[in-house]
């Protein structure tokens, strides 16, 4: 069983969580071109790497942010949603020695 550490609920099985996709900034619909808008609607960063993602603990309805390496399924850190307003740290490069999602110590302590 893979374990994810939620900033609110602590270490929980990953099956209790829903993945909400990579955090992306919407262009201003009043000023952007049609091309920029359709690219925002459909295109994704499909390559593996460090990504900030939305996750939700379903039972408590708690949305939060996970910094995860999508190549190795390693959670580097988690943040409450408010962190987005304060500004998230710049994305680090992929590392080899971080705890993996299958280990109970993954993620940040709340």
């Amino acid at each position, binding site marked *: *069983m893979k374990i994810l550490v939620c900033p609110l609920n602590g270490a929980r099985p990953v099956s209790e969580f829903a*993945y909400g996709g990579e955090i992306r900034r919407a262009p201003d619909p009043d000023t952007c071109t049609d091309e920029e808008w359709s690219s925002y609607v*459909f295109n994704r960063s*499909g390559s*593996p790497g460090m990504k900030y*993602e939305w996750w939700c603990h379903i039972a408590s309805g708690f949305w939060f942010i996970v910094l995860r390496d*999508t190549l190795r*399924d390693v959670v580097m850190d988690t943040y409450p949603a408010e962190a987005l307003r304060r500004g998230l740290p710049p994305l680090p490069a992929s590392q080899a020695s971080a705890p993996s999602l299958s280990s109970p110590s993954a993620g940040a302590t709340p």
Partner: protein
Amino acid sequence: MFTRHDSLKAGYDVVIIGAGGHGLAAAYYLARDHGIRNVAVLDKGYLGGGNTGRNTTIIRSNYLTPEGVKFYDESVRLWQDLAEDFDLNLFYSTRGHYTLAHTDSAMRTMRWRAEVNKHFGVRSEAVDAAFVKRGIPSIDMTCGGHAPILGALFHEPGAIARHDAVAWGYGRGADRRGVEIHQQTEVTGIRVQGGRLAGVETTRGFIATSKVLCAVAGFTPRILDMLDLQTPIYVHPLQAMVSEPVKPWLDPIIVSGSLHVYVSQTARGELVMGASLDPYELHSTRPTLDFVEGLASHMLDMFPFLSEVKVNRQWAGLADMTPDFAPIMGLTPVEGFYLDAGWGTWGFKATPVCGKTMSHTVATGRNHPLIEGFGFDRFARYRLTGEKGAASVGH
């Protein structure tokens, strides 16, 4: 079985990235039908080692959109004499294919698919529960009491085939016609000059070419990054598993959307089982215990007598998903760069027709009429080809 080539040539007429079923089929038809034999097929791993060897080998054409039905129907037609074409036994076995409906809304989709299919001459019927029970006598029609089977879409041409042999057959056919297959050769860059393709950088040196076909499934975004091309493709693992061999008892192929199961029995007696995608983005083929537990419990809902049967192996492949569950094929904004991608969880059955249509597209520089609904530019025009109702089990 294959000619060994110790060195790469300085250039080829066409370079195909990915020696899976799709890439090798394109090479085969380029050589056989279009006379283009100065072709290299490159693979960073080994022949047929990606999703060609990781799928659950189901072949069907009971899709939902007219574009999809016509395309997959042509593929099923090509499948039927492929073994003769190759002089290689593909173990192609027509079984009949049931997509079970456990809800009224699923039954509605089955009727819709049946009507679209019949309109295009594909043999599919919406059938009732009694028909399902006659076709699969051993099934628990209540599925453990919580998902009673109301009926199904029955698709008579549904078949399975030995997937490795498909790659070997296409590979050998291409090889005999002069195509070079280079395994352990990774593409590390793509050179473009003045908006046109100039060549590919590989771990074994540079190759000059004006045409590249990319058929690399879950690795597509990494290749597209080399050209700064953006697509909606996102990658999730798709897992599958196989049981120990048991004596033959399951002739048809069974799919249940509600229970997230598809299963067939191979000629060797193993049950090959698959389910829905893993729930989040990941570029790793390490399988999970959760998957086996979930799939096994749904198998037991349908077939409780399997409780003593052991699971022999499980594995995962990287599925290149698209938002409309249709592929992305043909010309791209880079002249000379052709894409055969977005094959997600539905690519194996399309192997022959992808080879046919992509070889035509590469040889002529124009999209084959059968792939017009799958164009690279359809998202920018909001003209999607919504195939989710027929391509996935997770709806």
